C-alpha cells in the first residue's frame, strides 16, 4: 500500500518529533511545571474550594490563556530553531517532502504534548463531580475550547521558532506575540487603546483577542465564530511558518 507522499512524510515527522519530546527531559519538565502552576492558580488564586460551586470555569479555565501563553511557547520553541542550530534542517529540506507536511507534522507533535498536559488535569474534573452536580457537557466543551486555543499558541510558537536558530529568542518572541494577542481583550488594555484610537477601533481590536474568543468556551458555550477564529489563527501561523522555512532556500 502506497500512502500519499505528503501524508507519509507528515506522519514520519510527527512520530519523530513526538519521540524526541518523550526521550528528552524538557517536555516532562514543562508539563510538570504547567500542572504545578495550574494547581496553584486554581486552588490559591482562583479559590476553587472557597467558591463552593461545582464548576471549573472561573477557578480553572480562566487561567488557561495566561498559563498557555508562557508554557506553550516553551514547548514550541525548539520545533524549528533546534533544526537550524544543529544543521539537521538541511537534511529535512533535501528530502522529497512538501514543506507543509514538515510544518504540520511538527505542529501536531507539539499540540499532542499540550493535549497530554490538559489530559493530566482531568482529576480536577473528577473532583468537581465528587463535590457536587457538575455540568459535565459544559466542562467537556471548555476542555475542547482550551485544546483549540492551545493549538493557536503552539502555532504562534512554531512561527517564531522558524525565524531564528536560538530557542530562547523564539521563546521570548512567541511570549510577546501571544501576550499581545491575548491581552487585546482586557479592559485594562482596551481602555488604554480607547484613549488613543477611540472606542470603535478598540472594540474591533478586542474582537481579535484570544481572551474574547475563549470567554464563551470556558463557560461551555460553543461559538462557531470562535472555532473559526482559532482555526484561522492556526492556519495563518502555520502558513507563515512554511513561508519562513521555504525562504531559506532563497539564501
Amino acid at each position, binding site marked *: *500500500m*502506497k*500512502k500519499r*507522499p505528503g501524508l*507519509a*512524510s507528515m*506522519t*514520519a*515527522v510527527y*512520530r*519523530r518529533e513526538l*519521540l*524526541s519530546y518523550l*526521550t*528528552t527531559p524538557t517536555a516532562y519538565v514543562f508539563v510538570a511545571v504547567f500542572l504545578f502552576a495550574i494547581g496553584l492558580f486554581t486552588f490559591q488564586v482562583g479559590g476553587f474550594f472557597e467558591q463552593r460551586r461545582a464548576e471549573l470555569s472561573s477557578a480553572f479555565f480562566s487561567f488557561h490563556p495566561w498559563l498557555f501563553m508562557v508554557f506553550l511557547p516553551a514547548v514550541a520553541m525548539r520545533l524549528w530553531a533546534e533544526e537550524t542550530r*544543529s*544543521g*539537521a534542517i*538541511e*537534511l*529535512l*529540506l*533535501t*528530502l*522529497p*517532502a*512538501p514543506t507543509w507536511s514538515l510544518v504540520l507534522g511538527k505542529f501536531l507533535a507539539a499540540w499532542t504534548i499540550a493535549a497530554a498536559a490538559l489530559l493530566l488535569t482531568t482529576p480536577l474534573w473528577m473532583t468537581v463531580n465528587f463535590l457536587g452536580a457538575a455540568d459535565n457537557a459544559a466542562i467537556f466543551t471548555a476542555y475542547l475550547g482550551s485544546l483549540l486555543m492551545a493549538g493557536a499558541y503552539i502555532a504562534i510558537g512554531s512561527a517564531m521558532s522558524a525565524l531564528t536558530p536560538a530557542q530562547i529568542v523564539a521563546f521570548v518572541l512567541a511570549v510577546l506575540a501571544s501576550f499581545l494577542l491575548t491581552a487585546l481583550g482586557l479592559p485594562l488594555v482596551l481602555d488604554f487603546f480607547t484613549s488613543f484610537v477611540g472606542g470603535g477601533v478598540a472594540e474591533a481590536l478586542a474582537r481579535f483577542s484570544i481572551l474574547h474568543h475563549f470567554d464563551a468556551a470556558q463557560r461551555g458555550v460553543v461559538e462557531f465564530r470562535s472555532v473559526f477564529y482559532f482555526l484561522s489563527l492556526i492556519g495563518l501561523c502555520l502558513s507563515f511558518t512554511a513561508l519562513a522555512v521555504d525562504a531559506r*532556500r*532563497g*539564501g
Partner: protein
Amino acid sequence: MLLQVDGLRKTFGRRVAVDGVGFSLDVGEIVGFLGPNGAGKTTTMRMIAGYLEPDEGAAKIFNIDVARERRRAQERLGYLPEGAPLYGEMTPWSFLRFVAETRGMAREAARHAVRRAAQDARLGDSINRPIDTLSKGYRRRVGLASALLHDPLLLVLDEPTDGLDPNQRHAVRDLIRKLGEDRGLILSTHSLEEVEAVCTRAIIIDQGRIVADQSPAALREQHGSLEAAFETLTRGEERA
C-alpha cells in the same frame, strides 16, 4: 544524462558564492570536487540537492529541473550534507526508518531499505545505540546510509571523509569506489590523495568558478602533481 548543471550562480548579499558553474555527470563517474575553503563547493552541492535555490542557471537530475520540480528531482538523488547532521537522540535504526518513511516508503519497504543501506554502509551492531554516543566515523556512515536508502543513481556527498581516522577513511573510500561502479558520484574533499585514489574526474573550483575539469591523470601530466595543479589554479582567500 544523470546530472546536468548549467551556469549556476548564487550570491549572498554582495558576495558572489558561485559564479556560473556548469558541468555534467554520467553513470560510472566519480567526480572529485576540489577547491579552497569558501570556493563555492558546498553552495553548489546545496543547489544540486535543492536546499538552496540558484539565482541563475539550473541543475537538472535526469533532465528534471531541481528548482522547478524539487521533489521529483530529490527523489532521484542521495545527498550527504556537510558535517552529516543527524538527530543525536535517535538510534541509527530509528533515524534511518524516519528518513525512509519521510521519503514516502511504506513500512515493509522502509524496513527492507534500512537493512540494505545499513549493510552497504557497514553499520554493524551499533545500529541500536543512540547516535550521540557514536564515534565521528560511525556517524558519517549513518549519514551515508541515509543517502543510500532509496538506492539513488546519483550521489552528492559533501566531505564524506572529513574528520575520519585513516582506517575509517579507507573504509569509506572502498565504499565510494564500489558505489561508483554503477552510479554517478560527486564528492567534495580537501584531500588530493583521495582524488587520486577514487575519482575518475577532478573539478577544481576557485572563487565560484570552475578552473579545471579533467581526469586526475591529465592534471598530473600538465602540472607535475595534483598539489602543483591545485596551487597554480586556485588563489583561495589568502592570496585573493
